[in-house]
């Protein structure tokens, strides 16, 4: 199939696209077959020449969404729109790996990370005219930390340590935490901690979820919508409070951004190539080469704010209760083969549970190298012996394990199909229920379903992701891990904190092997030629700095 991929001529690609359409039901197969060799990936061309002012950028999201309430369930569809409407106190600069000032012109913690002081930029206003002052920030922090009970809005999970905020003066807010939290500042950079006008916070649940009624201080404001079809955002001409590291410190170059939806994955490449959209999210690996070779751009946006894509382990069925079995499965995955067959050059093999560019990342790739012999040895030691059909068994039970995932990722199902083959070679049977949302509805809460394949925002560190008893990854509160998470959150010294974050990764990935890591989270965008756009560490397009060569 690699031959087909390398043929650059027009006709065969069309034929292949039509086949792809015909075989949508079997798209996974096609992906497996045609995935590799998607060369020619281009990086963002931003900064290559002077930005052009004006124009409308048409952006195609994956599915429509009608809940834009700031802190509830965190979906890309929502964050990618809200990122241009709401500002945050801080901004994570991926280049330096540091938090930089945004609405907070400076911020500092006390010695033990229980008290934080934010100095606010003067003169910032929400689009409804309200001042973004200390009182407005306090109102937002209260909503994030405690929820808004009368509007049925739940607290933001990354603000679980929040106790109270105090207005020191018009431009200064002081936050008290119930307990030390070394990740608190990072959590203020998330889109899910976006600041809205105090008037928006007064609305009921439906009102706060309605993009029409949400007023932020961001570079774009809501202009119009056709429900489930498009949202039009217009630039705010008086915007002058971008994050400190933003190249564009003023109003957006673009006049308007039109957000449309392309739930049909087969159209996304064609939409960019035909110029009907300037930017599309969720390009399939199989389409990347065609987009790049037609003079358009393939833009991978690394998910630095998220965990790597991982198969989180649930030990409820007992089959994976022994660490040795989990470690065997960890080294029984050939990640390079996964990249070569299912993914593309836009994807990076995971080196840990954190993204390679995330603060505190430790490279565990040496421990993750494919080693089927060691895997077999570990399984032998754990007492699982191969049966007549090649599948291992112990005490009359076969080593048959199940994976569940949502259908959100275009590559997750073929990825687990390949892992299924790899594990068969070491005598483990994987029942692949990836991308089956119906199964997920029950499996998500079922600790007997051994694997949950996913990735998750980790603004509050790894603790909120893997710690609580209700965590959807492992569905289990591991005492040792939780002690580690608690120490990490409480660590006041930066070096000490970094060391503990490293320890958490080693515990999750190698020692306990509760997260079988696969590839770093990345969202692959397709952009029409002449479109210049960069992305946040949470993979959201930064429309404030975007521009089109032809205006």
């Amino acid at each position, binding site marked *: 199939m690699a031959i087909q991929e390398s043929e650059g001529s027009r006709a065969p690609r069309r034929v292949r696209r039509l086949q792809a359409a015909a075989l949508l039901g079997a798209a996974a197969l096609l992906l497996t077959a045609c995935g590799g060799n998607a060369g020619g990936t281009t990086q963002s061309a931003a900064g290559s020449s002077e930005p052009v002012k004006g124009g409308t950028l048409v952006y195609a999201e994956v599915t429509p969404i009608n809940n834009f309430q700031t802190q509830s369930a965190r979906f890309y569809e929502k964050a990618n729109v809200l990122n241009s409407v709401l500002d945050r106190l801080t901004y994570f600069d991926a280049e330096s790996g540091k938090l930089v000032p945004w609405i907070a012109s400076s911020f500092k913690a006390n010695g033990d990370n229980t008290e934080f002081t934010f100095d606010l930029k003067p003169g910032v206003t929400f689009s409804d005219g309200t001042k973004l002052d200390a009182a407005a920030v306090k109102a937002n922090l209260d909503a994030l930390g405690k929820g808004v009970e009368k509007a049925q809005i739940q607290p933001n999970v990354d603000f679980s340590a929040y106790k109270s905020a105090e207005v020191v003066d018009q431009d200064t807010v002081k936050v008290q935490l119930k307990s030390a939290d070394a990740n608190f500042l990072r959590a203020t950079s998330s889109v899910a901690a976006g600041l809205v006008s105090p008037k928006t916070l007064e609305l*009921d649940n439906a009102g706060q979820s309605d993009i029409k009624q949400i007023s932020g201080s961001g570079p774009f404001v809501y202009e119009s919508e056709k429900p489930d079809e498009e949202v039009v955002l217009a630039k705010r001409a008086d915007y002058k409070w971008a994050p400190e590291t933003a190249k564009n410190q003023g109003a957006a170059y673009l006049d308007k951004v039109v957000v449309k939806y392309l739930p049909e994955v087969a159209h996304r490449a064609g939409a960019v190539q035909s110029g009907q959209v300037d930017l599309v999210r969720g390009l399939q690996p199989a389409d990347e080469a065609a987009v790049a070779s037609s003079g358009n751009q393939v833009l991978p946006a690394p998910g630095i704010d998220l965990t790597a894509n991982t198969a989180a382990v649930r030990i409820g069925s007992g089959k994976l209760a022994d660490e040795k079995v989990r470690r065997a499965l960890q080294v029984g995955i050939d990640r390079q083969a996964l990249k070569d067959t299912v993914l593309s050059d836009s994807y990076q093999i995971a080196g840990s549970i954190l993204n390679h560019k995330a603060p505190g990342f430790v490279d565990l790739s040496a421990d993750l190298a494919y080693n089927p012999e060691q895997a077999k040895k570990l399984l032998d030691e754990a007492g699982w012996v191969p049966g007549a059909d090649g599948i291992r068994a112990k005490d009359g039970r076969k080593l048959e394990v199940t994976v569940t995932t949502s259908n959100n990722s275009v590559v997750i199902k073929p990825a687990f199909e390949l892992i299924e083959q790899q594990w068969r070679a070491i005598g483990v049977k994987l029942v692949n229920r990836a991308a089956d949302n119906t199964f997920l509805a029950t499996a998500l809460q079922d600790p007997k379903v051994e694997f949950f394949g996913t990735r998750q925002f980790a603004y509050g560190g790894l603790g909120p992701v893997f710690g609580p008893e209700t965590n959807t990854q492992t569905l289990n509160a591991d005492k040792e891990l939780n002690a580690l998470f608690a120490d990490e959150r409480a660590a006041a010294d930066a070096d000490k904190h970094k060391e503990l974050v490293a320890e958490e990764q080693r515990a999750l990935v190698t020692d306990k092997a509760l997260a079988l890591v696969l590839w770093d989270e990345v969202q692959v965008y397709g952009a029409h030629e002449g479109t210049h756009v960069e992305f946040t560490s949470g993979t959201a397009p930064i429309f404030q700095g975007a521009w089109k060569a032809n205006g």
Partner: protein
Amino acid sequence: MGRYVALRIGQALLVVWLAYTVIFLAVQLLPGDPVTIFLSTDAAVDQATIDNMKRQYGYDQPLPVQYFAQLGGLLHGDVGYSLASGEPVAARIGGVIGSTLALALSAFATAVGLALAVVAAATLTRSAALRKLLTNLPPLFAAVPVFWLGLVLLELLSIRWGVMSLFPDGSFLSLAVPVFVLGVHVSAPIAQVLLKSIDTVYNQPFIDVLRAKGASAAWIFFHHALKNAAGPAATITGITVGTLLAGSVITETVFARSGLGAVVLQAVTTQDVPLVQGLVLLTATVFVAVNLLVDLLYPLLDPRILKSNGQGSPRALGV
């Protein structure tokens, strides 16, 4: 007649109530309640948050209380709240149903027209080859999946030739193409059944009598055969409402149109159980309503229905 109508309406209401009950019970069979399921798609949430939200939406009440409270709400048109947007389910569905209805009704009219045209042409043509070709069209229509036809047409019309947008833009083609795609698919079973029953009618002696009297082929087809063959086609038309709804969902997704399709997709991906519940109930109600309509139309097509004892569906007569 009055007794017949009252009976049919009573039965329809009973079916809707049973459907509601089954849906309610099915939701109870899920592990966890709607709130837990919804919140679990996100990061770990603490139990206090879950309990709080359950209380707000009434999921902490004993089952019988929930059942009757929801049933009572239903009678007032209140189908609960979407957990994802906090919007009432009825408002969420009501906001988009117009778009789906426009698509589905136009597609339905297209389907009936297409089926009639194919059947009339196949019956009236003198060319055996053309008749063979035409009678093979409905199985072909049935075999072509809605999404495939939609994808191919969009690939050609939008991406390759650039005559229409990938997105709904209010142009003629942006409605006509999805309507055609869905209409073709829905026409297949109607045309198939109509062809078959026309065949049966043509084998009956009265057709020979009409021919002997010198009636033209077209006169026989439109004035006599069609009405006699319409019964089974009407039955299958009632059943195609399911195909029509499912097809609308797929067509809307392919053509990026707003409508029930997008809502279904959202409700399922965000695991918004109350919204799914509302959608399933709506589907059941539409199904029952359309079939009720067909039952009520039946006596007009075949007056023998009213002469029977009026028990059970008239279609049991096997006209």
